[in-house]
Structure formats: C-alpha cells, structure tokens
C-alpha cells in the first residue's frame, strides 16, 4: 500500500474540509464511546482483566520463539502447513504460490489488516488471480478502490449515498431503477452478490486475531460470518498472521476475547469467534482440504527488546482511535497507511520508517485517552514520545522546530532568564491585545494562528501567580 504519511498535514487539511467525512465522524464517535463505556460498566472485573491481558501478552512475548514453534508443530500435526516469512515480499510470494498450486482463479477474503499491510490483493491481481473482499465494508472499498479508514469499521467514512452510488455503478447487470435507498436493500444486494463469489472461490484467505500455541489453532472474530464462509467453502484456507498474535492456551485467549469485543464495539462477544485447526478430518462433510498459515514477521521481531516492544501486545480493537480527538477530527485516511490513530502512530514509523511517518507521533495532544482505554495497557503516548525523540536525534525534525526547541532549551536551563522572558512576553502580548479577547494573527506565530486564535494572556505568569498564592497561605 502506498504510504502517504509524509503528507499528513495536507491529508488532515483535506479531511477537515470533507463534509461527508465530518458527518460520519461526528455521528459515530459518540456512539463508540457510549458502547464501550456501557460494556465496561457491565463487567466489574474489566480493569483487572486488562492487567491479566497485559501479563499474558508480556509472558508470550518473553517466550515468543517457544510459543511460535509449539504453534507451528501443532498446526502440522493437524495436517496444516506453516510458511514462515521474514518480509512482506516473502509473504506475498507464499500466498501466490499456494493460490497457483491450487489452480485458483478467484480468491475470497475475510477482513485482514495484515493483508492490507502486505498488499496481497494487488499482488494477486498482477498475477491474474481475482481477490474478492467479502467483509461488507471492505467490499465497497474494493469497488471504490479506496483503502480502509478504520481497522474494524473500514468504510465508516462513507455515507449511505456513497454506497448507493457505488453499487449502481458496479452492479450494472441489475435493473437501474431498483430501490437502494435503505441500508437493508444495500446489504441484501451485497449478500446476494457475495454469496455467489463464496461458492465459486478456489481459495479463501483470512487473517487471524490469535494463534493458539497449545492447539495450533488460528482464531478469527467477525460479526458478519463472511470470514467463516471464506474459510469453510473453498478447498484451500490460508490464514495470514503476524508473529505477535500468538497466545499460549485457550484459557489465555478467553481473557483476551472478553476484552476485545467490549473494547471494539461494546459487544460482550462478537457474533462468530472461530477456531480453525488443520484440514478437514475423515468423514467431515465440509471444510477445507488444505490449511496454510502464513506467519509474517514484517519488522516485528526487531521491536522485541526495544522501547517499542509493548506495542506488540496490541489486539487491534481500535479503542485507541475511537477515543482519539485527533482521529475524531481527521479520520483514518489522513494517517496515510494501514494503521491509523494512536496505535498506527506508534506502529507505522516502526514498519515503514520514521523518516516517512514522523508526522504521526507528532499528531497527538498527549491527552492520554488512548492509554486509558487500551485493553492491554499499551503506554501509547509514551511510545509516541519515544518516536519524537528518535526523530529529533536523527535530525528529521524541520530546522525551524529544532532551532525553536534549542532556544527553548537554552532558557529552560536558566530559570531566572526563563521567568524574565516569559514575563516580558506575556506582558507584551497583554499590552498588544488590550481590548480584544484573542489574536487572530501574530507575527512569527502563523503556524498557530492559521488554524485557531491565540487567547490574550490574562493576569501574571504561572510563577507569579504561584508565589502570590504561597504568600497568601
């Protein structure tokens, strides 16, 4: 997938001016907050479960080599094959090889973020194989040739009119005057079309939310049932999974499942939680005859032992982006790659490079809401701060910012000077701004006033006020 993260500022400006997107964000965000809050309130153990989940993931990461080898051995015992892939290239090739050996012409797909990361669809298309996205949201994005804007609600930036327009444009064999004004009609049309694709597909590709080491199972969690149709009907099932999805046992998965749906959609449990273990057994009347797990590193093993290791606990629930004021203002596409919001701001620089994605960890107010809702307690603001430090160390920060920070640091190390300077600056601004509540423009501060007003300082500086109050006690 093309990385447009370097253009974050331009992307964000465009998003702020996009009326449709702003409507979608405005109606959805409060609902997301309310749903998670209700689910959390209904489960008194929720906060303790977050601690347990964090500990399970930490334990797994500290022994990840052992658990991956155990997982792989158990997949093979159940007649499956594991394809270990260090890079995205290797993974794309592995998927293509499996499809070719299966003689595949069409491939159905369940929603998978790692598939977006690898660019599986483009790769298959280049080699004459037709991938069909079957998640409702992913399906319309494929029709519109757009990337997802959210990791669990990929098309949530679109409004009903967008759906209707795309369906009329793409499903040209249907009567042009058919009614499509209601959600139900749109969903029925997609259901009918995709049902035919499910039945015709030669290979089904899904992601995996968890890999259970104990049993060699891949787990998918969906509400539509498309993932299950994808992996049940074709002769070959391919599960794509990055290495950090491993968990030791079914009991460990229970804890993570209790947090996943509640954090994501506010459901106690998603509709379909499905454990796949190997190939069709003798006597089984359905299910795939071949089962492949494409196990992808893609830069994750380098995060182990680094200050970013905590990020590998992520279970992709999207709570952080649902609660992020920046995401809530600019939506997912602005982030310019597969993973938006706070988790993306940490992960994207790791996977595509901070030189390209340096804007993302800066696109945060550090309000801390993401960390406060993360089901596995990832210290997201702290990790974004690490990226800002690295960016500065590697001289990727723009020169004016560096000079400004240097100037600030010089003063900050000289408290008397610092106080004098702030006193002077505040006093000057107060004088200049007499009679108006805020500055609409100010020399040298165009970057600030371009997007918002600067309030005129009132009263003394913080230190002056502080001293006054101390004296008064």
């Amino acid at each position: 997938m093309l990385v447009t993260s370097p253009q974050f500022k331009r992307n964000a400006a465009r998003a702020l001016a996009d009326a449709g997107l702003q409507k979608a964000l405005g109606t959805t965000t409060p609902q997301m907050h309310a749903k998670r809050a209700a689910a959390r309130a209904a489960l008194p153990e929720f906060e303790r479960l977050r601690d347990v989940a964090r500990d399970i993931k930490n334990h797994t990461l500290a022994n990840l080599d052992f658990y991956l080898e155990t997982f792989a051995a158990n997949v093979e015992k159940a007649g499956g094959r594991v394809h270990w892939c260090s890079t995205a290239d290797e993974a794309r090739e592995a998927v293509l090889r499996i499809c070719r050996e299966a003689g595949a012409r069409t491939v159905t797909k369940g929603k998978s973020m790692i598939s977006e990361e690898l660019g599986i669809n483009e790769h298959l298309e280049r080699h004459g194989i037709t991938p069909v996205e079957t998640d409702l949201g992913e399906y319309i994005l494929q029709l519109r040739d757009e990337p997802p804007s959210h990791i669990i609600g990929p098309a949530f930036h679109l409004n009903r009119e967008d759906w209707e327009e795309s369906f009329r444009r793409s499903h040209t064999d249907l009567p042009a005057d058919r009614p499509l004004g209601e959600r139900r009609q749109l969903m029925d049309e997609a259901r009918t079309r995709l049902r035919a694709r499910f039945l015709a597909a030669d290979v089904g590709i899904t992601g995996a939310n968890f890999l259970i080491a104990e049993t060699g199972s891949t787990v998918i969690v969906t509400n539509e049932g498309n993932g299950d149709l994808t992996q049940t009907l074709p002769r070959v099932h391919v599960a794509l999974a990055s290495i950090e999805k491993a968990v030791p046992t079914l009991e460990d998965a229970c804890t993570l499942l209790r947090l996943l749906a509640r954090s994501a959609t506010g459901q106690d449990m998603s509709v379909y939680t499905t454990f796949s273990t190997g190939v069709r057994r003798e006597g089984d009347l359905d299910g795939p005859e071949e089962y492949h797990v494409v196990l992808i590193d893609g830069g994750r093993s380098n995060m182990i032992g680094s200050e970013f290791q905590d990020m590998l606990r992520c279970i992709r629930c999207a709570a952080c982006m649902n609660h992020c004021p920046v995401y809530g203002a600019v939506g997912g596409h602005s982030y310019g790659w597969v993973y938006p919001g706070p988790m993306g701001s940490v992960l994207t620089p790791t996977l595509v490079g901070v030189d390209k994605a340096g804007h993302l960890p800066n696109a945060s107010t550090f309000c801390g809401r993401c960390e406060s809702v993360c089901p596995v307690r990832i210290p997201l603001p702290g990790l974004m701060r690490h990226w800002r430090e690295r960016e500065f160390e590697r001289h990727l920060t723009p020169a004016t910012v560096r000079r400004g920070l240097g100037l600030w640091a010089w003063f900050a190390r000289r408290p008397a000077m610092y106080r004098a300077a702030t006193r002077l600056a505040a006093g000057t601004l107060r004088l200049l701004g007499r009679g108006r509540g805020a500055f609409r423009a100010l020399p040298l501060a165009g970057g600030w006033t371009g997007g918002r007003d600067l309030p005129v300082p009132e009263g003394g500086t913080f230190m002056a006020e502080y001293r006054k109050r101390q004296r008064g006690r």
Partner: protein
Amino acid sequence: MSREAILDSIRRGLRRGPLPEDQAAMLRGRLARHPRQLIPARSRLPRPEQLALFLRNLEKEFGSFERVPDLAAVPEAVADYLAAHNLPPQFGMAPHPVLLGIDWSARPLLRFEARRAMPTDEVTVQHAFAAIAETGTLMFPADPTRPTTLNLLPEHAIVVLHASRVVGALEEAWDLLRAERRDPMTGGFMPRNVMLVTGPSRSADIESTLELGAHGPRRLHVVLVDDEGDAPAEAPGDPRAEAVAQPGEPAVPGD
C-alpha cells in the same frame, strides 16, 4: 531459512539463545495445565439462574428461543417456527444421532435431509455441543455429525440445545470439549473447527447502524430441551461412530 531468521531475531531481541531446557519444560507444563485466568463472577449462579442468564443474553444478542420438555417435542417446535415465519416445511439437518433419533413422523409434513448445508437451504437444524451463559453463546465443534456450513448458509438457523449443556463461563465449555472429544487426526481434543456463535449474523458497516443477516443467518432460534437431571454427555472417541448418515448418502427418515 526464514524460520530460523525469525526465531534468531526474536532471541536477539530477548538477549538470549534458545530457551534452556528447564525453562522450556516449565512452559510445556503451563500448556499442559492450561491454567484458568480471572473469570468474571457474572455466570457463577445457581443452576436455574444460570440458564436464565443464557436465555437473557441470547435474546439481548437478537436470538430467540422456545423451551420444550423433551426431544419428542422438537418437531412441533420446529414446525411452529416455520409456520410462524411463513417458511416452507423443509430444512437441511445435522446428521447428529440425537436429531436422527427424534421421531419426526409426529409432523409428517416436515421434509428434511440429514447432511451439510446447501446454498439453497433457507432453514437448517443444527445440534449444539454446549452453550455459555456468560455471553449467550453457542458452541459448535465440527465433526461428521455437525457440519460447519449449517451454521452459516441458511437464512434461519435453528439449533437444538439441551439445557444440561449450558455452562457458566467460556472456560467451562472448553473443559467439556477437552473431556469429551478425541480428534482422530491429532489425538488431541480440538476438531478442525470450533465456532462460538453469539446471535445471528450482523453488520454495522453501513453508517455504523446495525443490520441483521449480513452473510450468515438472519435469525438464530434455539429449541431448548429441558433435560436437567439426565445429562447426556457426548461419548469420547471417534465421533464418526455416532454418525448414522455417511457422506454421499443423505438420510431422509422424515420424508
């Protein structure tokens, strides 16, 4: 090879070589014990309330149910459901011995085939292995008697569930599976596929508004057989031994 490259890279990050044998043995011990983690208290209830919690959660998730006193009452419950929804009296049914053992002739108009689901099935009847009160979830391990497609292809999924198979927490359902199933291929307990189903299929992908019946069933209806007291555990061993119908020869006893 990539396998070694990935494992080496992980170990470099962890600043160690392959796990020392004593530590690996400890982890193997943890896998063998598969210790339970924190289990929410909500499902620790006296028996009748546990069942009520399951039914409440099932309905909260847009499922429906009917309670019947015994298996003999199942045909009537199924027939009533079909009539109430204006559906033709025919369905695909799991070739499960419990379902095949029912005397369907009580409702001679019902026509069914014991087999996997077909794309044309509007209605299917499946047999649940267990159910979980905590979340209103049904558990379907795949085997020759419980084809997975029956959970997915129809518009209306009817499920026969014994009340005695409703447990409190998800962990307890795994305990049943661990105790009662042997997989013919691995010797473990995990079948090819286990589906945990909580309500009918749905999507909120269009304008974040929930609609039922996205790709899977639009309706999920549980026929709950009140059998508390004479709990029929599933016999361990090769599940095919229980299966009456074999692939390729659909049983049609009710025709």
